[in-house]
């Protein structure tokens, strides 16, 4: 009885703390953008044929990738990792929209993007547009995307590109970058927290 009484107050305190921070305290695993930027709005064409406007995604966490479908290694790795993160998150994943913006619009038609994206997860969207539509987005997000001709390769050319994932929260704030070598658990951990908290 004495033990129980002695334990009562600490347990009460712990319960209060838990209620105060229902999402738990959190240290982000990626590169935190402090203060967060307003994510520059844009409209592109999703592989579904529907227009995709970033500002219309408010209320969802948007994970923005920049890549291309002839990228054999890094882009599929990033997207299959994200598909694994989605499996880990379960229902929380419904609050997240993954979108890949092509940096190779000449080759990545919406039809090709559809075939690429749906391999990973049916909800992932591939966004394409004209070079004139995509260039300003690349610039606004500080993405490196340089075309390199490959005279000795059947690929003809490749595009050197930044391999970060842009995390844009439910309020349209670009608040974190996932580094290319981040592991699945770390990404799932950060996303679960952002979804729980309703923002970064």
């Amino acid at each position, binding site marked *: 009885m004495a033990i129980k009484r002695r334990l009562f107050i600490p347990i009460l305190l712990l319960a209060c703390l838990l209620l105060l921070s229902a999402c738990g305290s959190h240290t982000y695993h990626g590169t935190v953008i402090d203060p967060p930027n307003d994510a520059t709005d844009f409209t592109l064409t999703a592989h579904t044929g529907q227009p995709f406007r970033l500002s219309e995604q408010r209320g969802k966490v948007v994970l923005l990738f920049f890549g291309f*479908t*002839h*990228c*054999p*290694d*890094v*882009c*599929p*790795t990033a*997207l*299959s990792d994200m*598909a694994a993160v989605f499996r880990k998150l379960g229902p929380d994943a419904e609050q997240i929209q993954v979108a890949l913006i092509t940096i190779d619009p*000449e*080759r990545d*038609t919406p*039809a*090709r993007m*559809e*075939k*690429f994206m749906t*391999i*990973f997860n049916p909800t992932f969207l591939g966004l394409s547009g004209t070079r004139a539509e995509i260039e300003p987005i690349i610039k606004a997000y500080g993405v*490196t995307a340089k075309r*390199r*001709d*490959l*005279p*000795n*390769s*059947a*690929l*003809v*050319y*490749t595009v*050197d*590109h*930044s*391999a*970060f994932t842009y995390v844009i929260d439910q309020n349209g704030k670009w608040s974190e970058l996932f*580094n*290319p*070598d981040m592991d699945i658990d770390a990404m799932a951990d950060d996303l679960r927290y952002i979804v729980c908290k309703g923002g970064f």
Partner: protein
Amino acid sequence: MRFRMILAVAVCALILAACGTTAATTAPTVVPTASGTTIGDLQIADVWSRQAGPMPDAMDDAKPTASTISDAKPTAGASSMAMGEDTGAVGAVYLTIRNSGSAPDRLIKASSAIAKNVELHTMLLNDGVMEMRPVEAIDVPASGEVALKPGGFHVMPIGLNKALTPGETFDVTLQFEKAGSVTVQASIRPL
């Protein structure tokens, strides 16, 4: 005494002949083991692949743009390449090469019926920027190993003839500078 001499010479000749033939000029000696495929001093293990791009019929969607194709390597697939810059579906093959010998070797070529072209590539990460580059060869150090894995070296089939279905396998022939050629089976993993 003379007989002994002849015997010694004969034995020497046999030994010389045994070492003198190179795998490149004879049929590859393939010894599959539980842990991989062996050719000479090299052991190739953990050969796997995955689809890296759209399905092959994506080529039909490519807009014909008659440019830069002349720079591409002429291949059996040149006719479909003439459609445009779209190179069809691509994949990546990963594997580990162990070298138990005291001399280094090099992987100089890979080929497979799965695709029109097969190339050797590497990935470099420079300040967060990923760069993919074809390489002429992949060095296999003496008494060491080289791993072809995501984010680094890979064998890249370009212009897949069929989709890479998880659970299935396909053959890839690897050609080494010293050890010669060997055919290994890549098992396709899900994305």
